[in-house]
C-alpha cells in the first residue's frame, strides 16, 4: 500500500503517523450505536443511489414510461442501441471527450506554470495577482455568456469544439491555479535547492523535481477541469448553436429530449451512457480527489 502513495502527500503525515491518531472510529461500540449507524448508512445509500438505480432500471426496461417496476419488466438493450445509432450519442461522446481532454491539457499546463510563479516567487504585485485569481473565481461565468459569445464569435470560433475548449479553459483555470498553488507550496524548497547545488538548471529542476512531486495535484485539477467540461451546459448551448455534429453530451441530451420527450427508456439510456464513464472514473480516483482537495483548496 505504502508504495502507492506519492512521495509528498500533504495530508500524509496527519493520516499515517500512528501516535497522532486521527478523529475517527471510537472505541465505544454499543449495539444501539451500531444500529443507528446502520440506519443512517442505509438512508444515505438510498438517497445517493436511488436516482442512479432508477436511471439504470428505466434504461434497461422496454416498458419504461408505461409501467413502473423496480426491476426491468421487459429487459432490453434496445434503448441503448437506439440512442447510440439514431440518437447520435456516439458523436456526442466523442465531442465531449475531445473537448474535455483539450480543456484538461491546456488548463493544467497554464495553471501549473502560474501556480509555480505565485507559490515559488516573491515579486511585486504577487498579492494583487493572487487576489485577482480569487476574485475571478467568484465571478459567475454564466453571467458572462453574452460577452463571451460575442468574444468567441469575434475569434471566429462559434460552433466549433475549439471555441468551447477556449471558454472551458477560462472556466477551469482560476480554480486550477488556486489548487495547484497549494501543491507547489508543499514541495520542500530544500529539494529544489539540492537540485541547484547539483548544477541543474531551473528548467531541469522544474521537470525532474517539481513536476513529479506535484503530479497528484495535477491529477486532482485535471479531474476538476474534466468534469467542468463534461458537464457544462449553458455555453455549449449558446455557442454550438445549430452545429449538431459538434454537440457535446450535455446539449446532445437536451436536444434528444426535445424530440423524444416521452421516451423515458431512451432518455435514461442516454443519461446512463453520459454518466457511467465519469462515474467509474470518479470511483477509481476518489482517493486522489480527496487528497487533492485538502491539499490544494483547503490547506491554502
Amino acid at each position, binding site marked *: 500500500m505504502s508504495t502507492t502513495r506519492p512521495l509528498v502527500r500533504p*495530508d500524509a503525515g*496527519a*493520516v499515517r503517523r500512528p501516535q497522532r*491518531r*486521527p478523529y*475517527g472510529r471510537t472505541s465505544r461500540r454499543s449495539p444501539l450505536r451500531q444500529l443507528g449507524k446502520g440506519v443512517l*448508512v442505509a438512508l*444515505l*445509500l438510498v438517497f*445517493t443511489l436511488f*436516482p*442512479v438505480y*432508477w*436511471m439504470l432500471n428505466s434504461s434497461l426496461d422496454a416498458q419504461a414510461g408505461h409501467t413502473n417496476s423496480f426491476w426491468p419488466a421487459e429487459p432490453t438493450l434496445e434503448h441503448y442501441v437506439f440512442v447510440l445509432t439514431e440518437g447520435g450519442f456516439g458523436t456526442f461522446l466523442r465531442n465531449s471527450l475531445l473537448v474535455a481532454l483539450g480543456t484538461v491539457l491546456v488548463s493544467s499546463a497554464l495553471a501549473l506554470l*502560474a501556480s509555480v510563479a*505565485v507559490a*515559488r*516567487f*516573491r515579486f511585486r504585485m504577487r*498579492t494583487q*495577482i*493572487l487576489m485577482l485569481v480569487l476574485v*475571478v473565481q*467568484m*465571478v*459567475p*461565468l*454564466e*453571467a*458572462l455568456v453574452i*460577452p*463571451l459569445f*460575442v*468574444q468567441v464569435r469575434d475569434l471566429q470560433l462559434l460552433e466549433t469544439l475549439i471555441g468551447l475548449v477556449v471558454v472551458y479553459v*477560462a472556466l477551469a*483555470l482560476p480554480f486550477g491555479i488556486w489548487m495547484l498553488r497549494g501543491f507547489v507550496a508543499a*514541495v520542500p*524548497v530544500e529539494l*529544489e535547492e539540492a537540485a541547484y547545488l547539483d548544477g541543474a538548471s531551473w528548467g531541469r529542476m522544474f521537470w525532474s523535481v517539481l513536476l513529479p512531486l506535484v503530479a497528484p495535484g495535477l491529477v486532482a485539477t485535471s479531474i476538476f477541469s474534466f468534469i467542468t467540461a*463534461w*458537464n457544462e*451546459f449553458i455555453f455549449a448551448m449558446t455557442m454550438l448553436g445549430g452545429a449538431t455534429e459538434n454537440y457535446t453530451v450535455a446539449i446532445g441530451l*437536451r436536444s434528444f429530449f426535445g424530440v423524444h420527450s416521452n421516451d*423515458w427508456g431512451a432518455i*435514461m439510456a442516454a*443519461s446512463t451512457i*453520459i454518466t457511467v464513464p*465519469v*462515474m467509474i472514473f*470518479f*470511483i477509481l480516483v*476518489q482517493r486522489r*480527489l*480527496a*487528497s487533492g*482537495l*485538502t491539499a490544494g483548496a*483547503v*490547506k*491554502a
Partner: protein
Amino acid sequence: MTQQVTTQLTEKLPRLSRARAATVRPWLLLAPALAVLAVLLLWPLVRVFLFSLQDYGLREITTGEPNWIGVENYAQILATPELWTVVLPNTFGFAVLSVAGTVVLGTGVAVLLASLGTFWRTVTSSAIMAAWAMPAVTGTYVWVWIFDADRGVFNDALMSLGLLDDPTNWFTNRWTFYAIVLLNVIHHGFPFVAVTVLAGLLGVPKEMLEAAEMDGAGSFRRFFSIIVPQLRQVFAVVIILSTIWDFKVFAQVFLMPGGAGSNRSVLNLGVWSYVESFGQNRYGFGSAIAVLLTLLLLVVTAVYVRTVLAEEER
C-alpha cells in the same frame, strides 16, 4: 504550511543572472494564464457592463454599433415587481437553502464516514462518488422522470400507498418545483463537501478529542468546540464554493418542465437573464441582470476573500 514555503528562493541563490531571471521568470510563467484571464474573463466582464448600458439588440450585436441608453435597463429591472417577489427570492432563498443543505448533509456524512470501518466507508464513499459524477443535465432529467406527473415513480408510489388520490404535477407549483431543484442540487453537491470535510476530519488529532471526552464533553460539544474550529478553513472553502455554485444554478432550473420561462414563478436571475437576452433579443437588458448577479455574488464572497487573504499574509 504557507509560512514554511514563502522562503525566498532568490535569496539563497547568489548569482546575479539567477536573481535577474527570478524577477522575469514569474511573469513569464504567469503570462499565458494572465492572457487567458484577461481576454476571456476581464474583458468580457467589462463588456457585459458596457452592454448593460445599451439597448443592445440583435442589430447591435451583429453590427457592433453602440446604442447607449444609460442606466435605463437597470431602472427597468429594479422597477419590475417580479424582481422582488419572484426572481431575487428564488435566487437568494434557493442559494441559502441549498448551501445550508449541502454543507449540513455533507458534514454529517463526513462525520458518519469517519466513524465507519474500512469496508463500509469504501462502499458509502463510492456511492457518494456516483452521485457526484452524475452530470447536472443528466441528474435533472432523472429527477424530472422520477417526479413526472403521469408516469413518474414518485406519484405512483404515493398513490399506491394511498397518500395521494390523483397524480399531482409537482413542477407547476413554485415551492414543489424548487424542492425538486433543491433535491437535485444537494444530491449533486453534498459529495464535494463530504469528501473535503472528511479529509479534514481525518487530520484532527484524536488526543484532543479524547481529552475533551475525559473532561465530560458530549459528542455535540466535541464536534462544535474542537472539530469546527480546527476545520474553520475547510468550512470556509466548502461554504464559499457551494455559494458560488448554487447562486448561478441554471441548467437544473432551465431544463425542468416550465423552467425555461413559461412558469414565471420559478425564474431566477440566471434563467431570467438568458431568456431576456437569447429569447427576447434584449442583450442589454439581459446583461444588466447578469451584472446584478455578479455584483450579488461578489458582495457575498468579498468577505471570504478578505478573510483568506488576511490569514495568508499574516
